[in-house]
């Protein structure tokens, strides 16, 4: 079973049959949600048909999405959920979260893990990394400039900057990157078969497990070593480490790649940012809203809950479409416009509720440093291919560009 790009077209909503989740983003502007999804956004919460036939819900309205994500009556436990889109080879019944994967847990198990981590990712601690992020960014830009004047921005910049930073923070040797970078991509790839995803995850955990043992034997100055002093087991530590590594590698990288593509495609906005680098922070917020790369977020109702005038019954799955919620015109006027002067704060790109992204302050620091540095270094940066030829990660839990060929004028 492979991905059929026309599948979304054959499932158009009728009065009788609820729609499935539209996933075909490649219908026009690469930054916009699927047109079929936008067409469903006239109702903030509506019925949706799941991969296994389950009749659940789709939330596209900002207020409804926010209410669901904030409400502990909606569970994050995978084993209670139905898959919004099929994964080849995956059984109808989802397994519970693997050990250490706190994204698939509820309180109090989730709280126990999260409390061990929140102190490591505070606003203050992440801001203290600014200088280090600047240093890593400069190194990547130097290498890109020397190898240029053409480059794949993903390989030269978008991937290595956050990868170097998360490796350093966790205490994962960057030189081992080939052992985990592709595994992480496979875990998030919706077109990968369940077996391949399982193998990739096992390989990632095995790597982390070896690392945890090494840190226990010889602690170094990093987060994984710090956590060995907690009451976490080796298995829990490897699971948490794998989650943090995966999240750190594949989210900001896609924001940097896709965000650069978006800014190059909106030259007026890029010009505004170049003229006033003080706009970097709000540009980052607007890019987070506009691109919403981590999507969707599923939840399962533990009891009957009324949301947006609808009664969600216990046991039903709700798919929260972050990209649709962040384009809700009731919350963000003229939502399809990238506008770096907009007050985009309040977007749901990092989720909402008790599971809101743990690493969001690191992501903010990385992007706030990286975007202005890139455009300052290469004042003539532009795409090296027509925009429609930029390959997109069309079916991944983390959206982005696969590569971004760029060029610039030499001094």
């Amino acid at each position, binding site marked *: 079973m492979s991905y059929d790009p026309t599948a979304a077209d054959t499932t158009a909503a009728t009065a009788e049959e609820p729609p499935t989740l539209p996933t075909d983003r490649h219908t026009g502007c690469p930054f916009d949600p699927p047109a079929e999804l936008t067409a469903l956004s006239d109702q903030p919460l509506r019925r949706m048909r799941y991969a296994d036939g389950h009749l659940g819900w789709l939330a596209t309205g900002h207020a409804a999405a926010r209410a669901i994500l904030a409400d502990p009556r909606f569970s994050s436990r995978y084993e209670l959920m139905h898959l919004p889109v099929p994964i080849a080879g995956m059984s109808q019944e989802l397994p519970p979260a693997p050990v250490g994967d706190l994204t698939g847990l509820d309180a109090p198990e989730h709280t126990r893990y999260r409390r061990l*981590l*929140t*102190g*490591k990712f*505070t*606003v203050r601690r992440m801001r203290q990394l600014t200088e280090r992020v600047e240093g890593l960014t400069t190194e990547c830009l130097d290498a890109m400039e020397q190898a240029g004047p053409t480059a794949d921005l993903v390989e030269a910049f978008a991937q290595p900057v956050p990868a170097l930073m998360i490796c350093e923070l966790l205490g994962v040797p960057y030189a081992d990157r080939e052992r985990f970078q592709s595994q992480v991509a496979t875990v998030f790839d919706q077109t990968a078969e369940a077996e391949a995803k399982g193998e990739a995850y096992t390989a990632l955990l095995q790597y982390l497990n070896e690392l945890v043992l090494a840190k226990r034997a010889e602690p170094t100055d990093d987060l994984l070593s710090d956590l060995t002093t907690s009451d976490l087991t080796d298995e829990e530590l490897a699971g948490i480490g794998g989650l943090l590594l995966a999240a750190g590698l594949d989210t900001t990288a896609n924001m940097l790649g896709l965000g650069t593509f978006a800014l190059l495609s909106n030259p007026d906005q890029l010009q505004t940012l170049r003229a006033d680098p003080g706009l970097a922070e709000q540009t980052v917020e607007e890019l987070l809203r506009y691109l919403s790369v981590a999507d969707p977020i599923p939840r399962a109702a533990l009891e009957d809950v009324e949301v947006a005038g609808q009664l969600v019954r216990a046991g039903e799955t709700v798919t929260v479409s972050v990209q649709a919620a962040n384009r809700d015109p009731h919350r963000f006027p003229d939502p399809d416009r990238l506008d770096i002067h907009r007050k985009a*704060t*309040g977007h749901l790109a990092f989720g909402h509720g008790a599971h*809101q992204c743990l690493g*969001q302050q690191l992501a903010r620091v990385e992007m706030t440093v990286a975007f202005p540095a890139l455009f300052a270094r290469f004042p003539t940066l532009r795409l090296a291919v027509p925009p429609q030829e930029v390959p997109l990660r069309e079916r991944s839990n983390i959206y982005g560009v696969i590569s971004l060929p760029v060029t610039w004028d030499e001094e």
Partner: protein
Amino acid sequence: MSDPRQPLRLSADRDRCAGAGMCALTAPEVFDQDDEEGLVVLLHPVPAPEHQAAARMAVGLCPAGAIALDSPDSTAP
């Protein structure tokens, strides 16, 4: 609803806090996070007038509903 003449009183519930840091990011003069657990620390329960708008925004942004605005007359929790 907001009356600028009424003093704004804030409360923070560290048991509910998810440590996401939205308050410390949005209103750093009013909120902080402790270094150990990263949970909310209320620096100024009654923020100065110039920090009230940011404090209100932080209350609205908190993902865990851990910070609240208390009206002085209110008996609500």
